[in-house]
């Protein structure tokens, strides 16, 4: 497995908030087109891992390569130099992120949410971007919502728009942080369906979720995080039927109870 086909490659990544160690030497490779599901109990560091990959948090040590970038740094004669805010922003364009609380831009319409970054940041032509945005709305099943404001949409609809917004930047990697945790049960599947479609289309995805149905259906690997470390990393069948870690067994028994 060469480095070239890895869309994500983490080497000994460490991150602490004060004395609280949240990522304790994480190694992780994700190949092109792979879908990796991460689960683990609250506080185990799942969100922080995704946020570090997308540079919403700075890591303390280690190295993150994602979507072809050495995230947050550049190499100058073998030494790592921190990138400016603007340079980090250019790296972030190649990674899409979807949040638990959607975080749509509430002050602009649905269409503008999707078009804002491609037109204002990449300075692409409005008409061209609009065509793509409408196609994305079609893809997430909301073609008639282009003029609505986020406030007027249900949670499930907002999350699908958030996915469309991320895809509008044509990312090489998509990160999902509990995309369905804030949704009413009847809206979960409409979001998961979009994600399954995306995985079938070959998108490289890291998904933090406790939707084990999604993990079984779409994941190539399932990872369990426990106390800032990865304690299990297996194909779904192994993960669910023959886990190696005691933590995984305990986690599964709790998940399956309800």
């Amino acid at each position: 497995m060469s480095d070239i086909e890895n869309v994500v490659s983490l080497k000994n990544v460490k991150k602490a908030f004060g004395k609280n160690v949240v990522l304790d030497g994480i190694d992780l490779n994700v190949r092109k087109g792979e879908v990796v599901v991460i689960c683990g109990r609250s506080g185990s560091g799942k969100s922080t891992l995704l946020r570090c990959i997308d540079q919403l948090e700075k890591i303390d040590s280690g190295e993150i390569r994602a979507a072809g970038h050495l995230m947050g740094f550049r190499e100058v004669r073998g030494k790592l130099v921190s990138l400016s805010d603007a340079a980090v922003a250019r790296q972030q364009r190649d990674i899409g992120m979807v949040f638990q609380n959607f975080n749509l831009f509430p002050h602009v319409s649905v269409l503008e949410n999707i078009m804002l970054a491609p037109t204002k940041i990449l300075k692409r032509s409005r008409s061209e971007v609009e065509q793509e945005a409408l196609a994305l709305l079609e893809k997430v099943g909301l073609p008639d919502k282009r003029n609505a404001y986020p406030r007027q949409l249900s949670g499930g609809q907002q999350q699908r728009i958030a996915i469309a917004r991320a895809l509008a930047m044509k990312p090489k990697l998509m990160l999902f942080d509990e995309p369905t945790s804030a949704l009413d049960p009847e809206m979960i599947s409409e979001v998961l369906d979009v994600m399954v479609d995306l995985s079938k289309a070959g998108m490289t995805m890291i998904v933090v979720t406790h939707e084990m149905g999604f993990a079984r259906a779409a994941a190539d690997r399932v990872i369990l995080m426990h106390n800032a470390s990865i304690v299990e990393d297996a194909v779904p069948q192994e993960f669910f039927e023959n886990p190696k870690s005691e933590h995984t067994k305990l986690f599964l028994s709790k998940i399956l109870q309800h």
Partner: protein
Amino acid sequence: MSWSWPYFFDYMTNGLMLKGVWVTIWLSIISMVIGLALGILAALMKMYGNGLLRYIAEFYIWLFRGTPILIQLVIIYTGLPQLGIRFTVIESCILGLALNEGAYLAEIIRAGIMSVDKGQEDASRAVGMNWRERMWLVILPQATRTIIPPLGNQFNGMLKTTSLCSVISMQELMRSAQMIAQIQFRVLEAYCIAALWYLLLVSIWGLIQARIEAYYEKPFGSEEATVSDKP
């Protein structure tokens, strides 16, 4: 000398008075616009600036909020020439009003920025926006919604605060009233007309402000049916 209606109505459309009204309007608008720019700058410096920038912003806000505008105006127009720094009456008024306004607006704008959900910063970073893009495309437009009502109040205040400029002989509405009052000593009539004009200006602004507020509230409107989810 009792109240005289003829003088009253005559003063209402008196050329001098109307000129004062006009001066008050543009002086308020120009000072507000410059004050707004200063306020945004000071707020951003205070919130995101490194050491020195932040101290400069804090010092500026502290100084101009901590001293009476009247003293600021007098120092700028009458005091500074002592150091060889000379401003015309108009320049002094705009400078004083804008500097004073900026200090107040800085705090209002800072509160507005802080009212924007933290998730918006994450979301705008995640689509690849740099600091400037995050500010201008996402954070400030949303902060505007919180900022507009107190900003409107500030402009209401500004329309009336310009009257202090009469002290350094700026010929705005208040000064016009003074001059008219001195011609026939119809003091009450002259100042009542000036007061009425202020009322009118402030009322018109109230209507404009309501429209601006409605515009910025539109995306957040609760009238349209919203499907609720768990928070």
